[in-house]
């Protein structure tokens, strides 16, 4: 028996650990460092219909126990992602979750329809929460009606289950979560980054050329845990949790909060081997907690 296995819509995960979108490119660079087949899944970088160059630099800034980024969804566009990146990834025995971004419903639908047909794409992650591009979906992420409409539209054309990625920059995240669940979402991924800003000491101007950026890393973990907890109580679809995961202990926390699997973003930059290291550490942690399987952890915080 594989103690770490988790079954989710469209995803038979050998373990619940996957790199988060945008923090792992299309797997090529980390694939030079270790065997990607160890991973539960890979969330690839946001793909848009056309090639995007993204925002001017500087695009990243460090903050206390976190970082800001405003990459701006740079990617080679749907066609080349399908032809080059997904084809290359097909050599690894690992499910792919394709992060789909756009500025209008039509873009999302086109990308979703096409990319969901790639043989190794097992699920979509609908990015309605990127804070870094003008029309990058953030409106979809803060308005439950828009979020639901987009989810329905994408569900209609997608050949694989659809996970919706939620923004934490909202007054009540459960409202959006319930709206996308009602619209047919198969799962939720959360959280995307919190909007933040860092100023240059000397000039007083934003360090990031884009002005604001998305805050990620350990600093945001308490917010992410709280939101996963809230959403997991509010909906019946599974959650892939993320936000500040750096080690196996953090994974325990996200599962306890109610997530069924966990994504690792920023921590890859600090320790490029963090995902396999977490995967190797999990069985021992389960032993210490006296648990048989990783799924025993899911939602522990809810029990009375």
């Amino acid at each position: 028996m594989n103690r770490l296995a988790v079954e989710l819509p469209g995803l038979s995960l050998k373990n619940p650990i996957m790199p988060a979108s945008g923090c792992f490119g299309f797997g090529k660079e980390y694939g030079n460092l270790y065997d990607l087949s160890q991973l539960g899944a890979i969330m690839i970088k946001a793909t848009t219909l056309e090639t995007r160059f993204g925002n001017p630099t500087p695009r990243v800034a460090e903050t206390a126990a976190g970082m800001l980024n405003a990459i701006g969804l740079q990617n080679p566009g749907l066609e080349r992602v399908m032809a080059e990146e997904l084809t290359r990834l097909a050599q690894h025995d690992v499910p792919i979750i394709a992060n789909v971004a756009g500025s209008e419903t039509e873009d999302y639908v086109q990308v979703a329809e096409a990319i969901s047909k790639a043989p190794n794409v097992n699920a979509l992650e609908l990015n309605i929460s990127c804070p870094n591009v003008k029309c990058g979906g953030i409106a979809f992420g803060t308005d439950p009606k828009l979020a639901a409409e987009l989810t329905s539209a994408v569900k209609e054309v997608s050949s694989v289950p659809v996970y919706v990625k939620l923004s934490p920059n909202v007054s009540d995240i459960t409202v959006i979560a319930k709206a996308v669940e009602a619209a047919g979402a198969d799962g939720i991924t959360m959280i995307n980054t919190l909007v933040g800003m860092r100023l240059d000491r000397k000039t007083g101007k934003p360090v990031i050329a884009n002005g604001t950026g998305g805050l990620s890393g350990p600093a945001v973990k308490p917010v992410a845990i709280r939101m996963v907890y809230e959403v997991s109580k509010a909906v019946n679809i599974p959650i892939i949790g993320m936000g500040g995961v750096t080690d196996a202990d953090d994974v325990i926390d996200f599962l306890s909060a109610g997530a069924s699997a966990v994504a690792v973003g920023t921590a890859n930059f600090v320790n490029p081997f963090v995902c396999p290291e977490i995967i190797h550490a999990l069985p021992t942690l389960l032993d210490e907690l006296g648990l048989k399987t990783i799924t025993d952890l899911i939602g522990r915080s809810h029990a009375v």
Partner: protein
Amino acid sequence: MIVQNRMTICATRQIADNIIEMVLEGNLVKEIASPGQFVHIRVTDTFEPLLRRPISIASFDKEKEQMTLIFRAEGRGTQLLAAKQIGVEVDVLGPLGNGFSADNSAPGETALLIGGGIGVPPLYQLSKELTAKGVHCVHILGFQSATAVFYEEEFAALGETRIVTADGSAGEQGFVTDSLARNPVDFTTYYTCGPTPMLHAVQQAFHDKQGFLSFEQRMGCGIGACFACVCETQTGQDMPYVKVCSDGPVFPAGVVAI
């Protein structure tokens, strides 16, 4: 191959105002391919500061498995690194990127090496490799002022070395390009590393020459995955952008739009 290596500090000393020379030992050194490659250093075991710091490899000795870094202790991260003592282990990721290639100069040719501030260190290993193969090296090293100057003797041992300071407190006064305008050097290829305005001025001044420039950019991953460190390329290039960390930091003149 890129490795993550806990390297041991075997020497560390201040060589100019806020400038630290640190020697690290570990098997990462075996993997170094060219001068101008860099390493990405974790300066603490906690998560604050969070990101690694990119620092160029100033020189290395594969036999001893040692490499030397020279860095300015300015912000939080580099100050923490500077405070570490001999014997302490540091988490180093590298070697990263594509450095200068000594193959771009032929024996007997003259190479012009132009460094500015903390752009000076990677030129040292390059000069060692070039002079070893019989290339004649001329070094133009720019600093803010006399107290910021380092490695003058080390470079002088390899070839003609001119110090230029912004305030004139050591060597010539002005920018490196001022010095070169006043006293031109006859050379075939230039190699340069330093602040972007300097790179820009050098590239303009020698637009008709073969040249190689090392760039800086804020980084996330350091290995090409996060798209933090991209630079737009000049029109006419194959790619609309390059990544400083994995395509660079060294690029031939004319590639990066500056």
